[in-house]
């Protein structure tokens, strides 16, 4: 290429830097937003993967009801698929945390293993302080945030169970807190369940392993060999489930073996006690002669054994020998007693007899108490936060399918208008080049270079920055929920290259499109100024009814708007995009959060649910505990169990809710028609189903569905009505209908209402301590937990609003700027005519404001569709989000869009002020 031509191209960039920057900015924004959001899911997952890897997170956890011992560890370790194994102790204890009992899980920390050791699993991540080094020191869970758990404090713990002494398991009950830690085992808020207290562990505490005094481990963690699957992938899940089965089997075998050994030991002990009792009884019943007789035979027996016994003989003979020897002693003593009538010795023997008797009773009881051992295996997925982490990241991914597309469309449109304007402005120059003999392709290349350079640098910088910024911003919102300290944001060359290719292709298309007309003209025609676009009557003028009512400036505005149709359209698209994004963001947030208030405020009107310990007590006994509590307002026995309905091959869980008194259910759950809100009564002829599952199954009132109740078989339930519900699926029916379908219901839970101002922790404590209630869950807590997890949405909504704002500002400013440069003469002229600055601005503003208003209206339409799309995408099968956009989202999105428009108008005002009136004197270019 010729040097002068290149020079011209680069000078062009320098001279019209504003224009170059506007293309650059919009491309940067579009690419950055797209790449950034797109990268968030992989970045989050990769960050988690790295975190798991670094801290050697377990793949499996095994425990059993009889603990874990060295032989179990050895059995599991011998498997080829197992890489590292670490056994540990744990004990759930109470501590007094600001006046209430909290359940803590004391866990063992092995400080002898170094970082690299494969058997060092689940490294603790230090947040503050240091790890325990000496006995009497502990580190606490970061989740335990109250003042009780500050570094330097002493942590006092006590047994959670009245029948157990803490000293049976732990060496001490006072620990100095030396650090705060995270554990890769718990990536979120959820901690383990426990059998004590409120049923959930508040947090973990790690102490040195040697402080545990039990003679068996509580659990063992293991990692699998060559397990390089991505931790959230289906592959990992499948493989880990396979390994869980293999390892579980070996573990169970070893546990059973140990159990049987133990059982044999107890049984032997029992039988030998029984033997010695029989013998003693026998001896005591004999007279002196008979005793002598027995003595002789025993002596013979001893001699026989002694002659047989060699070094190699087993313990059986040894035992027999010592048994015989002790019998001989007894016999001697007894013969002496009988001959001398020594009652003391006799009574001593009788005492011995009763002792053995007690021993037998003890042993029998011990054997009776030995339940069949149960083996428990856990994977990472056992903690539900693990699944929600990947679920949350996937939600962002579904958003990334829609939102950035907007930016890209708008960016393409902005590039198109900007390049078109540029080519139009340079008509004369194009003509000059043509006249000089440059080919059309070469002339076009100037604009191609110009545009491509802006697009290339913009997309490169945009994606590079976007890849860093957006995943971090989004993850920061999730940081409140997850403990994974950092995510990684690696440079992703594929993203960058794709974005660059697409942007360059777009801009080249825009350039060729806009150059085409100019380049096909004759040079002479290009040298002449283009005849100005003629004024035209607009359609509205044909309706004198409206037209005559408009004031003069309004008429001018209408004409101008319709004269620059392309620009008008583009402004409308840009503004509509902005409004739609904000509307979607706000609407989405409301759709999701509002269901909590509906579900836990309007639908579920009971306070909580207690699960009754019906295995040990009668239902009425269990319920009595609740009824007797002074804070209980009312309660209702309910049979609740999960069933399955099949859904296109997949199955969905549905809860059967069978109240004891069907007329009282309305005091606890608001059964009502989703649209008319009319109350629904339960009837003995069928069931009431919740709306989401009804939609999924596509059933109407009158249809019949099949519910699989596992061991109770499959039942066909007739649906009588559909009720409003937002989270989880329920099937409500009367007890007699259930009886007709299956059997008489065995009530297992109790819905209760508390009096106002009840201290729920104390209430649970009181009720659970009776042992007749296994656990209590409050609807308010469920709602609160869900709300917490939804708070992260706020930041995403804000990010959308900010991005939408930048989008609106860039588009409006860019287009208004083109509008001004194109009409500089006109503006200068009206200034000469004596328009004040404010009037001049208003002359231009009206067009902007009207386009903005029309854009907002369109934005509402697009936003509603977009909102619906996102809601349906983000919605999981288990919940139903609100489908409609709340009214204030419309208001707020319109106000925000207008605010952005106003901001642009303010900037423009100063630009207009600077327009020199002398421009009006110049000739037409």
């Amino acid at each position, binding site marked *: 290429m010729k040097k002068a031509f290149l020079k011209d191209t680069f000078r062009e960039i320098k001279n019209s830097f504003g224009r170059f920057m506007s293309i650059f900015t919009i491309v940067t924004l579009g690419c950055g937003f797209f790449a950034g959001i797109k990268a968030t899911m992989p970045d989050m997952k990769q960050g988690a993967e790295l975190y798991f890897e670094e801290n050697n997170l377990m793949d499996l956890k095994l425990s059993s009801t009889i603990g874990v011992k060295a032989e179990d560890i050895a059995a599991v370790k011998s498997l080829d698929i197992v890489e590292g194994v670490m056994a540990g102790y744990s004990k759930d204890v109470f501590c007094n945390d600001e006046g209430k009992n909290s359940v803590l899980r004391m866990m063992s920390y092995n400080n002898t293993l170094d970082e690299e050791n494969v058997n060092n699993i689940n490294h603790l991540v230090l947040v503050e302080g240091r790890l325990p080094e000496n006995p009497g020191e502990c580190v606490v869970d970061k989740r335990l945030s109250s003042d009780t758990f500050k570094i330097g404090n002493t942590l006092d713990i006590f047994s959670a169970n009245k029948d157990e002494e803490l000293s049976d398991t732990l060496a001490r009950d006072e620990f100095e807190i030396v650090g705060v830690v995270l554990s890769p085992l718990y990536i979120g808020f959820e901690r383990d369940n426990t059998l004590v207290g409120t049923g959930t562990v508040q947090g973990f505490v790690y102490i040195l392993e040697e402080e545990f005094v039990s003679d068996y481990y509580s659990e063992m963690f293991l990692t699998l060999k060559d397990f390089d699957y991505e931790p959230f992938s289906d592959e990992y899940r499948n493989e880990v489930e396979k390994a869980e089965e293999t390892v579980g089997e070996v573990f169970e075998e070893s546990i059973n073996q140990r159990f049987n050994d133990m059982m044999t030991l107890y049984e032997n002990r029992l039988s030998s006690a029984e033997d010695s009792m029989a013998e003693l009884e026998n001896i005591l019943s004999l007279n002196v002669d008979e005793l002598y007789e027995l003595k002789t035979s025993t002596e013979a027996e001893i001699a026989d054994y002694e002659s047989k016994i060699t070094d190699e003989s087993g313990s059986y003979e040894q035992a027999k020998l010592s048994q015989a020897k002790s019998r001989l002693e007894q016999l001697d003593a007894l013969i002496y007693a009988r001959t001398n009538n020594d009652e003391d010795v006799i009574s001593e023997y009788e005492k011995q007899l009763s002792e053995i008797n007690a021993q037998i009773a003890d042993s029998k009881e011990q054997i009776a108490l030995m339940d069949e051992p149960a083996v428990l295996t856990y994977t990472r997925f056992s903690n539900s936060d693990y699944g929600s982490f990947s679920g949350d990241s996937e939600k962002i991914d579904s958003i990334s399918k829609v939102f950035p597309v907007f930016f890209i469309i708008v960016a393409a449109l902005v590039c198109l208008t900007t390049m078109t304007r540029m080519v139009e402005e340079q008509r004369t120059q194009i003509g000059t080049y043509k006249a000089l003999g440059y080919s059309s392709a070469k002339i076009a290349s100037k604009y191609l270079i110009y545009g491509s350079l802006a697009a290339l640098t913009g997309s490169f910088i945009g994606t590079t920055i976007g890849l860093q910024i957006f995943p971090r911003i989004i993850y920061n919102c999730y940081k409140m929920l997850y403990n994974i300290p950092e995510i990684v944001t690696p440079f992703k060359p594929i993203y960058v290259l794709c974005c660059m290719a697409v942007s360059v292709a777009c801009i080249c298309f825009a350039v060729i499109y806009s150059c085409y007309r100019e380049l096909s003209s004759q040079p002479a025609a290009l040298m002449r100024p283009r005849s100005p676009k003629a*004024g035209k009557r607009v359609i509205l003028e044909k309706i004198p009814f409206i037209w005559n009512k408009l004031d003069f400036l309004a008429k001018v505005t209408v*004409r101008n708007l319709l004269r620059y149709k392309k620009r008008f359209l583009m402004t409308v698209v840009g503004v509509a995009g902005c409004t739609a994004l904000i509307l979607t963001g706000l609407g989405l947030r409301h759709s999701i959060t509002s269901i909590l208030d509906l579900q836990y405020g309007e639908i579920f009107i009971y306070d909580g649910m207690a699960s009754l310990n019906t295995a040990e007590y009668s239902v009425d006994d269990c319920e009595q505990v609740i009824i007797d509590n002074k804070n209980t307002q009312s309660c209702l026995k309910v049979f609740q169990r999960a069933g399955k309905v099949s859904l296109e091959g997949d199955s969905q869980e549905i809860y059967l809710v069978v109240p004891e008194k069907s007329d009282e259910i309305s005091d606890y759950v608001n059964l009502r028609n989703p649209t008319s809100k009319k109350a629904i009564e339960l009837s003995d002829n069928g069931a009431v189903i919740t709306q989401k599952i009804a939609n999924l199954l596509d059933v109407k009132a009158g249809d019949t569905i099949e519910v699989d109740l596992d061991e109770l078989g499959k039942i066909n339930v007739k649906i009588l009505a559909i009720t409003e519900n937002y989270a989880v699926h329920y099937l409500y029916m009367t007890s007699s209908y259930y009886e007709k379908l299956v059997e008489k219901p065995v009530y297992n839970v109790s819905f209760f209402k508390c009096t106002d101002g009840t201290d729920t922790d104390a209430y649970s404590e009181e009720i659970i301590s009776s042992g007749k209630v296994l656990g209590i869950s409050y609807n308010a807590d469920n709602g609160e937990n869900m709300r917490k997890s939804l708070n992260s949405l706020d930041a995403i909504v804000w990010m959308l609003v900010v991005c939408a704002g930048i989008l609106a500002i860039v588009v409006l400013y860019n287009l208004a700027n083109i509008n001004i440069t194109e009409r500089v003469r006109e503006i200068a002229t009206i200034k*000469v005519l004596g*328009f*004040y600055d404010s009037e001049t601005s208003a002359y231009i503003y009206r067009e902007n404001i009207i386009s903005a208003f029309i854009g907002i209206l369109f934005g509402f339409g697009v936003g509603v569709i977009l909102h619906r799309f996102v809601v349906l995408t983000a919605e999981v099968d288990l919940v139903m989000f609100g489908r409609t956009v709340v009214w204030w989202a419309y208001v707020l999105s319109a106000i925000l869009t207008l605010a952005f428009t106003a901001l642009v108008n303010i900037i423009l005002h100063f630009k207009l002020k600077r327009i020199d*009136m002398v421009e009006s004197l110049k000739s037409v270019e």
Partner: protein
Amino acid sequence: MAFVEFKNVYKRYKMGEVTINASNGVNFEIEKGEFAVIIGASGAGKTTVLNMLGGMDTCDEGEIIVDGKNIAEFNSKQLTTYRRYDIGFVFQFYNLINNLTVRENVELATQICKNAASPDEVLKSVGLEERLNNFPSQLSGGEQQRVSIARALAKKPKLLLCDEPTGALDYNTGKTILKLLADTCKHFGVTVIVITHNSAIAPIADRIITIKNSKVSSVEINKDPVDIDSIEW
């Protein structure tokens, strides 16, 4: 005191390190109701004079008195008001707004004035009563310039400033436009100032101000202006 007075007016532009004196002590007077012509070659500094007189630019030194007020001391808002009520401007390239009809172009000016003339009447007086609803692109150059004059006159200005009003027109049309301006001056009593490089039209004016090298080189009062038809260039 004269209606328009320039007293030692200086205007300097800084071009990099060089300062250019666009007006280097300009002095002249124009009486009310006169038809004045300011003549000078291109680059002589006549446009600078026009800009300052029209309130489109400020001077750096000196006084510009129009109807007893020193507009050199006006701020930008006062200047706008001055342009709005006191000045009518006729451009070389008409500067009509393409998107507005003939009548609307005039209305654009009248709607910001208090005592504006009726657009239709003014357009009738410049002979465009037939073309009220046409767009500028449908008019010839001469017709467009008439609209421009009508737009300026409709404001009933004290001063009508014309920047090369015939510059973009052919000979005959130019003549008719000049005639229109001269007639306007006579009939409406408006002070008309025409800026041109064409000295041939000087004889038709009441006062001829010649500008050379950013200074007024001569002011000539023509007691007996000739009719436009008698001159040729």
